[in-house]
């Protein structure tokens, strides 16, 4: 269990860094994220866990959307559905918002949104077994 606590703490920190601009609503997503045990967080470099961590041109598969329901629906209508592949493309000067290629179209998201779109862990990760 110690490991999970560590896991939670480190995710907490990284999220805190990502979302400095964001205020109140973050606690929820952080709590939800802390139960995401798929990531190989101990061995650097860690696999990207959210869309925001993907580098330009890398691809990732969406697992779930940790956003309020109406936002999730709009995102899904734009193509961000679990199971779909997303590839980050160019960004506005300064690094955000970034354009993502998903389901045949290109959609721009701010980092705060992208960091709540959780990626499916690549296979053969230690935490994978815990997932039902």
């Amino acid at each position, binding site marked *: 269990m110690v490991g999970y606590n560590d896991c939670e703490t480190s995710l907490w920190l990284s999220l805190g860094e990502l979302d400095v601009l*964001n205020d109140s609503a973050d606690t929820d997503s952080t709590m939800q994220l802390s139960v995401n045990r798929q990531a190989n967080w101990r061995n650097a470099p860690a696999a990207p866990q959210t869309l925001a961590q993907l580098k330009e041109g890398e691809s990732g598969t969406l697992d779930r959307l940790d956003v309020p329901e109406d936002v999730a*629906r709009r995102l899904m209508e*734009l193509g961000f559905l679990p199971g779909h592949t997303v590839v980050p493309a160019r960004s506005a*000067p300064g690094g955000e918002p970034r354009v993502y290629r998903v*389901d045949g179209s290109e959609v*721009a998201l701010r980092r705060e*949104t992208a960091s709540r779109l959780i990626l499916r862990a690549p296979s053969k990760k230690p935490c994978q077994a815990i997932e039902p």
Partner: protein
Amino acid sequence: MSDCHSCSGCAVATAPIPARPAVRPHVVAIIGPPNSGKSTLFNRLTGLRQKVANFPGVTVEQRIGRAKMNNHREVILVDLPGVYSLNPRSEDEQVTRDVLTGQMQDVPKPDAVLLILDSTNLGRHLVLAAPILSLKLPTLVILNMADDLSSRGGQIDTGELASQLGAPVALISASKGDGVEKVFQFMVGTSAGTTSLTPPKLELPILQDVPRCRQWAREVGIGAAYQAPTPPLWTRRLDAVFLHPVFGPLIFLAVVAGVFQTIFRGAKPLMDGLQSLVQMSGHWIGSVLPTGIFRSLLVEGVWNGVGSVIVFLPQILLLFLFIGILEDSGYLARAALIADRTMAKFGLQGKSFIPLLSAYACAVPAIMATRTIESKRDRLATILIAPFMTCSARLPIYFLIIAAFIKERPFLGPFLGTQAAALLGLYALGFLAAIVTARLLKSSVLKSERTPFMLEMPPYRMPTLRSLVLRMYDRSKVFLHRAGTVILVCAVVLWVLAHLPLQNGQPPNISDSYAGMIGHAVEPVIKPLGFNWKIGIGLISSIAARETIVATFGTIYGMEGTSDSVGLQKALQNELTPGGAFALLVFFAFAMQCMSTIAVVRRETGGWKWPAVQFAYMTVVAYVCAMVANVAVRSGLFT
């Protein structure tokens, strides 16, 4: 979660249609997701036979047009808002659903539906087909952008798709006009009542949530041998330039500067032409009519007043030509992307960007467009700042003052002259006031969480001449309508006030007229801004609409013998100090002189509280800033 909605939809849709009188026109609704080319098709089908209105009771804009078919019958086309689904969550979706199910008051239930989808992105766009087809209305599924699909190596078996969906399918290119005859054929068929409904081969999803509809769309696509096209190469190439970390913002600035420079330089010959036309016709009327009160009203009141506003039409059209090119080409979405970080710093969200951009045309449609913002506080903040954006009604007075007081010199080499730079500065000033106000609002009374920014980047496309011409036609209609109504009435009222009370049966000197008295009465208040009583008359008349001030000047100075715009410039040079001129520009940048905007804010916010606060705030800001501007110029701060 939406099964009950779709059921109720079906129930209404399948209910027996009461026998309707034979005279009732055939109504066809056009629906499609954003960026599917819906407007292009609508324009293609209706041409100039269209008008913009609001759906009754709500502020969602509806465009209604008439399409003439080759059997000489007419079809009423209703353009519905662009939606991704029919889940009644936002007002747009609610309106779309209500119209399609015949629950919208005063809008007849459509007899048929044109569902337009982007054939290059069919997987995602077919998602909307599920809720539309389950309404069981005669539907033509239009796959648009056929030219793109084939040039990028995509394929679709339309016959198979039609049997999969149980609805006819037409592969067209709305911008080029290819295949549009199939749309007319369909409408001829439905208006004659010969179209029969066939059940879809692949059953529609019962629970219409997004993942299920998307899965259904995938299966339909596979069934119809849909081959998605390769990614748009040119869009990638252009984005590499337009979204380049260094060149992107530079191009952005160059585009903006170029637009303003061209508006000033390019419109000049047209404007001069129009001006001499107005002048000549005025002289002609003056020469044929007998001297008297009627001639004076017509020439001084109507011709000088309205004519002095109409000469600005070319510049306004040129601005809309550029906005049209930027929007239709897809560059505007990139500009929104580049601007987003700045917007976020001021507490505004991405969705505020589009209404604010359209506020550059006019605040009224912009305030209506805020309906797409789900967060109530963000929406109110956007409504409150929208009138700060430089709307086209400000342009006549801006052009007039700038031309009169700023000498044209190169400012940034040959790219930007001082006059265009001054205009650009006024746009920046309005924008600055808007974002500072937003910051104030969002950090105090309208504090809320940030809502996410999601913006689809459409592929770059070549704007079509047809759609650009239609836009400019629309705009000139609006502009001339205002000139013919609000401004005409104001000009006539002003003329009357300037000619009464009669002294010994003769019109008085303007200074002694009722208009003059009003002007003198407000003079003490506006003196600190550097305005005299004549400017005061203009300011009061401009509360109705901003352009009216130019018409008022036209009437006032017309009575003194100068009528054309160059004469107006000269008259203003005598009337205003440089400080006063600068103050007048600043005042117009900030003040909320627009009846229509006040009315629409009252309607949208449901009371007089917010429009009153907004009017007071903007007037105070305008007054104080204009005073500062006047004092600053007078004390030589800018020399």
